[in-house]
């Protein structure tokens, strides 16, 4: 088994782990973590799969780079929404 395939398979495991945790855990912050783990799994599958023949492929690398930046933006937005939700809950009490 090549190293790239190993990382792609690890990506599958991480994706499934994140998916399971998204369903399992109801705490909002933990769900944000789970969403990020799913994303990292998808990135690993994407790059690992494209490079299985041993040739470095700049196209998936560039797209994963884009994905990481979008993921942090989505994380920040999610955290802002969580905080807003909890503040509104406090106000309602």
């Amino acid at each position, binding site marked *: 088994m090549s*190293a*790239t*395939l*190993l*990382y792609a*398979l*690890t990506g*599958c495991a991480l*994706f*499934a*782990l994140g*998916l*399971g*945790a998204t*369903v*399992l*855990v*109801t*705490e909002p*912050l*933990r769900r*944000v*973590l789970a969403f*990020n*783990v799913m994303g*990292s799994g998808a*990135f*690993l*599958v994407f*790059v*690992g*799969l*494209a*490079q299985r*023949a*041993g040739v*470095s*492929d*700049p*196209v998936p*690398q*560039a*797209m994963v*780079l*884009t994905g990481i*930046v*979008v*993921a*942090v*933006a989505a*994380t*920040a*937005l999610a*955290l*802002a*929404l*969580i*905080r*807003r939700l909890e503040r509104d809950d*406090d106000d309602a009490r």
Partner: protein
Amino acid sequence: MNVAVVFDGVLAAGLVWAAAGALLGRDRYRAVILFIVFGLLMTLAWVRLSAPDIALAEAAIGAGLTGALLLDALGGTTAATAGRARRWMVLPLAVTVAAVLAAVLRALPVRSGPLPDAVSAALPESGVTHPVTAVLLNFRGYDTLLEVAVLLAALLGVLGAVRHAEPVRLASAPVLQAAARVLVPLMMLAAGYLLWAGAHRPGGAFQAAAVLAAAAVLLALVGMISGWGRPSLRLRCAIAAGPLLFLAIAAPLAGRAALLVLPPQHAGLLILLIEAGLTLSLGFLLAGLFLALLRSDPVDTGKR
């Protein structure tokens, strides 16, 4: 046995361990720390996959900035209250998903697609010699343009959801401030280097912007700058400058065969201009994601 094989095996196991600990452990603080460890292990995985550009971005953004955001959020959000009654339904689901994905992945034919060759063939006309930068800023420039738009939208969402009455400023920490006075100029120098290096080796606007954002996070944590309440007009102009410059370069090219095809004779200069603008604006944008969420009471563990 080959050392590299052992290393890959341990790293893969470490990734799954850190992710499982971050998602399923009881303690929230430990979960966030393990998530940061996960980001750093991902950085190593990217190095092993010969993707140094992603490794730089993962270290600075995936582990660094996301970690800072999550640690800050620990004080602001309350702990879990709900139980884990559905555990036994979830386990078979996750195992099935992983098994099906792995089976599909192993069944696919092993050969590289046409894209690496297409990129190397077009590289001389791209204006840069580093293939990842060529893809990001030239061959798929519209991806990058839209990505910046997504970031802008996310920042607007964050600013809309979190309204501070007045900007938050953390307590001043004199010793750390002395360290920050040495580190921040070096970080700005490193950002400039990464921006320039992106044309011919791993680096570029995103990594440079991430370092700038990290400098801003550092300054906020030692109490030298305050968080964002309502960004001033000057700040908003700085954020908009990069995307607007990108659009201004893209607009005259709109009539050509495909979207955002840079003319080969000017491509190098145009890419440098776009990247310089993006570094500035993305630096403010990424820093803003943290600074808008900055809390005045980070040690409050949510017992309200």
